[in-house]
C-alpha cells in the first residue's frame, strides 16, 4: 500500500474492495492481506478527473487515463494526462515490485525525453497535485509491519484502525501510516500518513461501490496538511480485467501518444 498500506494507496489500488460477507479478523496483517486479496485483478483501467483546491479554494482541473496490468507489488501502470491541453501526452510509467519501492519514469513530450524519478525525489508533488510520486505506487502487503490500534467509524461505517510501518524505512517518505479498513467489505476508508510525528497527508475514500465484484472507491481526496490544499480524484469509466498487453507498459510505449 502506498504510504502505508499494502498496495493500497496507490491510485490503482485505491480502488479497494471488499465483500459484504467476510469473516472478521482481529489480526492486523490478516485484515490487510484480506483487503489486498479482494482487490486482486488482472488489470484495471479508468479515466480520472483531478481537481486541485489550493488554500484559497481555487480549482485547477486535470484529467488522466490510468491503465494497470497486474496487481499490487507485481504490477505495472501507465498514467497519461489528457487535460489541460498544455500537458496532454505527459505520461508516467510505474513498475511496482513486491520487495522494494517502484521504478518510475516520466515522459515529457515537449522535450521528447523520458526521465527516471529517483527514489529520493518521490516525496515531490506529482504535477501540481497533492499526490506525491510515492503515492502513485502500489506496494505489496509484505513491505509493511502492522499493528491493530483499535476500532473507529468513518462516514458511519465501522472500521478497523491499523498502523503500518515500512520495513525498509529509507524507501518511504512516511515513517508510518494509520489505515481505516471497513469491516463490512474490507474497503479502505481513510489513510493518514506521518513523517515522524507530523501528519503529512490524509487520503479519504468515498463513493464506494462494487465494480465487477470489486468494492472500489470512485472518489479519493488527498489533503496535504502542510499546504492546506487538497486534490480530489474522481474515477470514471472504471473497468477491471480489461485486455492489456505487457508491451504497453514499457518506456517505448509511453512515448506513443
Amino acid at each position, binding site marked *: 500500500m502506498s504510504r502505508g498500506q499494502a498496495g493500497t494507496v496507490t491510485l490503482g489500488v485505491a480502488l479497494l474492495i471488499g465483500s459484504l460477507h467476510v469473516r472478521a479478523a482481529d489480526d492486523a496483517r490478516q485484515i490487510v492481506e484480506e483487503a489486498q486479496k479482494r482487490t486482486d485483478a488482472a488489470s484495471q483501467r479508468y479515466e480520472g478527473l483531478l481537481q486541485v483546491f489550493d488554500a484559497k479554494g481555487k480549482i485547477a482541473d486535470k484529467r488522466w487515463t490510468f491503465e494497470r496490468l497486474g496487481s499490487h507489488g507485481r504490477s505495472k501502470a501507465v498514467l497519461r494526462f489528457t487535460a489541460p491541453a498544455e500537458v496532454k501526452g505527459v505520461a508516467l510509467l510505474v513498475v511496482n515490485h513486491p520487495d522494494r519501492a517502484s521504478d518510475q519514469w516520466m515522459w515529457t513530450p515537449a522535450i521528447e525525453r523520458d526521465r527516471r524519478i529517483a527514489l*529520493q525525489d518521490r516525496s515531490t508533488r506529482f504535477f501540481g497535485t497533492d499526490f506525491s510520486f510515492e503515492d502513485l505506487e502500489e506496494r505489496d502487503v509484505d513491505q509493511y509491519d502492522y499493528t491493530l490500534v483499535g476500532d473507529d467509524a468513518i462516514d458511519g461505517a465501522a472500521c478497523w484502525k491499523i498502523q503500518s510501518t515500512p520495513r525498509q524505512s529509507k524507501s518511504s517518505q512516511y515513517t508510518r501510516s494509520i489505515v481505516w479498513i471497513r469491516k463490512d467489505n474490507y474497503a479502505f476508508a481513510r489513510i493518514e500518513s506521518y513523517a515522524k510525528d507530523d501528519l503529512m497527508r490524509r487520503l479519504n475514500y468515498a463513493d464506494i461501490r462494487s465494480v465487477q465484484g470489486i468494492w472500489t472507491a470512485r472518489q479519493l481526496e488527498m489533503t496535504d496538511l502542510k499546504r492546506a490544499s487538497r486534490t480530489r480524484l474522481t474515477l470514471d469509466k472504471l473497468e477491471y480485467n480489461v485486455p492489456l498487453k505487457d508491451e504497453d507498459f514499457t518506456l517505448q510505449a509511453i512515448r506513443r501518444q
Partner: protein
Amino acid sequence: MRARAALLILAAALASPSALEAQTITQRGFADAGLFLFAQAAPNDPTREVADLLAREEIFVKPAGWLQFAAGLDVRANSHDQVDEGWRLDVSDRGERRPRLGLRRLAATITRGALTIDAGKQFIRWGKTDIVTPTDRFAPRDYLDVVDPEFLGVTGVRGVVQAKGNTFEAVWLPRFTPSRVPLLDQRWTAVPPAATAIPLFDGAAVLPDGSQAGVRWSRSGDRVEFSASFFDGFNHLPNVDVRPAPTPLGAGPALAVSRTYPSIRTYGADAALPTRIFTIKAEAAYFTSASADTDQYVLYVVQLERQTGEWVFVGGYAGEAVTARRSSLVFAPDRGLTRAIVARASYTIGPTKSVAFEGAVRQNGDGAYTRAEYSQARGQHWRATISGVAIGGRESDFLGQYHRNSHVKASLRYSF
C-alpha cells in the same frame, strides 16, 4: 512529392473501413504569440522589438494496437524576416529561415512484442543530461535564437528492442538535417562593431548527401542507468568559412560566409546514479573526424539533480578537451556552453504558477548568461509567460559575444 505521397498513404490507411473501426485519434496543439524586447541595438541589427507567432497542431492516430501514425504541422509568422515568405509546405525544414508552413513530424510507429520501429520524420533524443547533451547526435536545433533553441525533426528509421532492463536502439537517417544557424544580418550572428562596415553575404551551405547511422545500448538497473552509443554521420553544427566575396568594380570589400558539415564519428556514454541526496548524471562523447579542418574533442558533463518540496534543481559542470585542433571557425553552441558551470532551478508556486531560473558561467569568467521566467496558467487553455535573459562577457567568448542581446520576452499561449 515524397511528402505528398506519404500523406496520401497515411490518408488512405486512415480511411480504410477496418481502420476506422478501431482507431483512436488524439491531438494536441497551441497558438503562441511572443514579443521580444532587446535592451540595445546590435551592430548588424538595429531592431529591438521582434514579434513572433507560432501555431502547431499534432495528430496521433492508432488504427490498431500495434500501429500508430503521427503528423504535426507548424504555421509561423515573424516581424523580423525570420520566416520564409512562401506558403509552400516545407517537409525537410533545411532552409535558412523557418518555414511559414512546416511539417513538424510525419511518422509511423509499429510495435511487435519487444520491437518498436519508427519510420518517417520524427524526434530522436539521446542522452541524460540537460543544457549540454554530448551524445544527442540526432537532434539538430533551430538557433535563430541561440539561447532558446527548438529541436528540429529528422527523417529516418529508428528501431528499438527492449529486453528486460536492456534497450537496444539503431537509427538510420538517409537525409541530413542541419541545425538552423543565426541569420547573418541579425543579432545572433555577433559582428564586432569594427567589422560592421564590411557587408556579409551568405555563401550558402554545402549539405552532405550521405546517410547517418547510430546505435545505442541502454541498461536500466535497480539503481543505476547507463548507456553506450556510437554515431557515424555528420555534425549538424557547421564549420564556417569566411572568404572575400566578389564585388562590383568600385564597391568596397565584402565577405562571403559559407557552411560545411563535416563527417564525424562519436563514441558516447551516459549514466544516472541516484544517491541519498542527489541523482548524479554524467554524459560524455568523443568526437572524431576524418576531415582535415575539423577538431577532435571530448565533451563531458557532470550534473547533480534533486527535487525537494516544490523545487527542482539541476547544476553541474560541462567540459571540453580538444585532442586535435584543426578548425579556426565553427558555430558550435554545444562547445560554447562547455568549460562552464551550468545550473537550472524551477519552483512550483501553485497549481497554475511557476518560476524558473537558468544560467551558465564560463570558468574563465569571459561569458555568462542567466534567465528568469515566470509563468501562469489561466483556465484550461491559457498560459502567459514572461522571461528575462541577461548576457554578459567579452566579444571573444561564445556567450560573451552576445552581450548586446539581453532581452525580455512576453508570450501568451492558447493550448487546445
